[in-house]
């Protein structure tokens, strides 16, 4: 089975090799120990991970309840959509925007809070800033999973509770939440495993500083392996990666176990609030939340389409005046080589992922080799740092560093693991009698002829999610590429748009227009795909369908 061979070669083998590398270079490990405050880095990782996953789950949960409690369906959809908006912005763009939002008296966020300094520049507050941005980016997906689970609670249960004289708050905290306990736990665990391997946010916002105050393990793997001048840098990085892999294994195993569980107990809380007061709270909460979530996006467009002089004012100008598209056009022109690489890679690698994963997920859903599923989910929930160093060495050995091939070979790993899960869920819902009919009538090639065409909508949704994921990727391109595409043949140079946006960080103190315009250029194409994807998922949640966790 090609899927299995692929995940062995790019998942299991590199994972094991990481540990070998970490073991080989004892001396370099000691060196790393001396140069890097490893305990502080581990502590940072935990603070960052726990704060992000707890806050994102909690706010996502409250948002889901708040929106579900609104009676008007159209209004529900609109607000859900607004809560989902940050999901459409690649993390690189988002972090860029936040870096200028924190810019002391000129940044809108710090200005509104009355801060005269940039919190990212002080070791005492930098972590809080990084966590804030990380939570901002994690709320939408937490919200989406919990919201669609709430929608899957049968309507009769809600109606029955309200007819029994329960208040809305009682329905949610006593009945609905215990019913969807599994989804809530999954959201938390997923948030946890993803923030453990977080790289983008601290890397862009602070680069791990000041000093090591925001360096997490994921970031340390990168800086030790690829940015230090140590002789045995790679095995030192592998050491950090191995620590990360070991730490990540526990929540990853719990995650796999919870996915398989039928139900997860969840405490039933006795919260009785008058319906009118509750709706008032809902309005206030959603108002603040939507402002927090969506204002940065508005600000990104605002800053991208005006000149830099308008950015450095106190108080900051927050209304659209002095609009010009010249910075956007400049950024667009400069982005072209990056854009080409991104389009190539984020179209080809999702297609490879789906080709690998869909036959495998079909077989697993029909009871064959079903142990591959938990194995895949385990690999999926490990941070990419656990694999990257051996992959880097391998790609370097076959002389493909800094080419499209490097990304096309590597990126389908997470895509295929994720697609396996999504398609597996879809295929298990597909009635078995479709297979039986095919068997009975001796239909040949039933997978290609029957199952694939039947799953067109699911395949399309999966493809969209994978393209979005590939477009957002920063870590893998950063490690495996060095220069932008040089328009030669065979193609050489493969830096992606997310790296292009990253390069704009140099402009943070000079030209915010260009920086924001780069963020917009990076975000715009994928925003459209994300909007389609979100609409599909939200509509799916209403028809009680899509299971995408």
């Amino acid at each position, binding site marked *: 089975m090609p899927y299995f061979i692929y995940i062995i070669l790019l998942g299991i083998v590199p994972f094991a090799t990481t540990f070998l590398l970490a073991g080989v270079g004892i001396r370099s490990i000691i060196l790393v120990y001396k140069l890097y405050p490893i305990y502080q880095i581990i502590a940072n990782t935990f603070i960052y991970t726990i704060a992000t996953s707890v806050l994102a789950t909690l706010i996502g949960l409250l948002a889901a309840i708040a929106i579900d409690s609104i009676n008007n369906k159209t209004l529900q959809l609109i607000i859900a959509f607004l809560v989902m908006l940050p999901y459409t912005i690649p993390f690189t763009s988002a972090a860029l925007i936040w870096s200028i939002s924190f810019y002391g008296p000129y940044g809108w966020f710090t200005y509104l809070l009355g801060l005269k300094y940039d919190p990212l520049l002080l070791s005492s507050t930098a972590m809080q800033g990084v966590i804030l941005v990380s939570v901002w980016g994690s709320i939408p997906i937490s919200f989406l999973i919990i919201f669609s689970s709430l929608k899957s609670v049968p309507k009769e249960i809600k109606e029955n509770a309200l007819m029994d004289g329960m208040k809305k708050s009682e329905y949610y905290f006593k009945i609905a939440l215990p019913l969807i306990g599994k989804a809530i736990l999954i959201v938390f665990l997923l948030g946890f495993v993803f923030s453990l391997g977080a790289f983008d946010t601290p890397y862009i916002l602070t680069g791990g500083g000041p000093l090591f105050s925001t360096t997490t393990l994921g970031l340390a793997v990168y800086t030790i392996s690829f940015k230090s001048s140590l002789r045995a840098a790679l095995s030192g990085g592998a050491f950090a990666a191995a620590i990360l892999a070991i730490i990540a294994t526990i929540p990853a195993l719990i995650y796999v176990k919870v996915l398989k569980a039928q139900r997860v107990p969840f405490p039933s809380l006795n919260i009785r609030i008058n319906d009118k007061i509750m709706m008032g709270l809902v309005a206030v909460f959603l108002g603040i939340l939507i402002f927090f979530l969506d204002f940065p996006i508005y600000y990104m467009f605002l800053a991208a389409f005006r000149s830099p002089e308008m950015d450095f004012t106190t108080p900051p100008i927050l209304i659209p005046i002095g609009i010009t598209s010249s910075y956007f056009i400049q950024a667009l022109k400069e982005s072209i080589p990056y854009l080409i690489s991104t389009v190539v890679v984020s179209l080809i690698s999702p297609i490879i992922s789906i080709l690998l994963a869909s036959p495998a997920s079909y077989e697993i859903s029909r009871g064959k080799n079903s142990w591959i599923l938990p194995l895949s989910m385990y690999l999926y929930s490990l941070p990419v740092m656990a694999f990257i160093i051996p992959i880097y060495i391998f790609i370097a050995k076959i002389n493909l560093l800094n080419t499209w091939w490097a990304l096309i070979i590597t990126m389908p790993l997470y895509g295929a693991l994720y697609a396996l899960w999504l398609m597996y869920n879809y295929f298990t819902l597909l*009635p078995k009698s479709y297979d039986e009919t095919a068997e*009975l009538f001796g239909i*040949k090639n039933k997978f290609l002829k029957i199952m694939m065409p039947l799953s067109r909508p699911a395949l399309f949704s999966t493809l969209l999610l994978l393209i979005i994921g590939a477009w957002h990727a920063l870590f893998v391109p950063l490690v495996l590429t060095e220069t932008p595409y040089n328009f030669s043949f065979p193609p050489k140079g493969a830096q992606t748009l997310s790296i292009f946006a990253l390069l704009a960080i140099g402009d943070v103190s000079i030209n915010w227009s260009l920086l924001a315009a780069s963020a917009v250029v990076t975000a715009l194409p994928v925003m459209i795909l994300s909007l389609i994807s979100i609409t599909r998922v939200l509509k799916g949640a209403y028809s009680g369908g899509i299971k995408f966790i």
Partner: protein
Amino acid sequence: MSVSIKSLEKSYSKTKILKGIDLEIDKGEFFVLLGYSGSGKTTLLRCIAGLEKVDSGKIIIDGIDVTNLEPSKRGVSMVFQNYVLYPHKTVYENLLLPVEGEKDSKKKIEEISKALGIHEFLDRMPSQLSGGQQQRVALARALIKNPKVLLMDEPLSNLDAPQRISARRFIKELQRREKITTIYVTHDQIEAMALADRIAVMKDGKILQIGKPEEIYNDPVNEFVGSFIGDPPMSIISGEFMKIDKKIGVRVDDVVIGDGDLIGEVVDVEFINGKYLVHIKFNGSELRGYYYKRINEGEKINFGIKRYRVF
């Protein structure tokens, strides 16, 4: 013998679903497997289809042992409860699937769709058809390969009442015309009575009785069959008052109300099909009989028993 089944056994994990089934079905026969859910009737059908592997026993179709053959090699076809037409293919394409690659596939589709009155729907998608029409398409797809045996799993249960009656007649006429050996699974005894040449009543993985509908109705082998078959079913009461120390079963038509030397109390009266179904409390249990006029609940009445069966 078209289908013969010998000491068939089947279990899922540790539960035995089929506990030694023996069955002989004649060529051209309309054979109904009747039982409540959990009786094993659907599992038996799926074993004959080859969709389930059996633990032991033999399935022989037209003299060939098919026990270990793939479903498509057995010469059987099946109509599923929810028809299972592929939603992404037109009616024509659905009919083509079983005969794809055969030379006269086009002609076969032509013939069968005319025979089943679905010729005008060939270009439509299944979702554009009514339940009854979908079922005809499923039947056509099942018949297009000229199967030796046609299997049907509760094919009427997804239709609403008026459609069900006409579909029932349609299936019966088709079966008689084509003389195709048919095994039909249902939990509805009225459906079984209306369609079957012979019925096998199943319970807990065993066949309790095989016979013509009349035989099963008039001579149930035990209490269960007696109280399962008939609407209303047989009344089962203690035979003590007749000096029989077993239970006896009495059909509703064999209770004569207003005449006889037994006395009971009317507990309920229902108006059914122009007659009154009277529930009579007698000797601590209940009997049912028809009467031509309404009687008041609580009244004492005389009645007699024409015929009964001892279990």
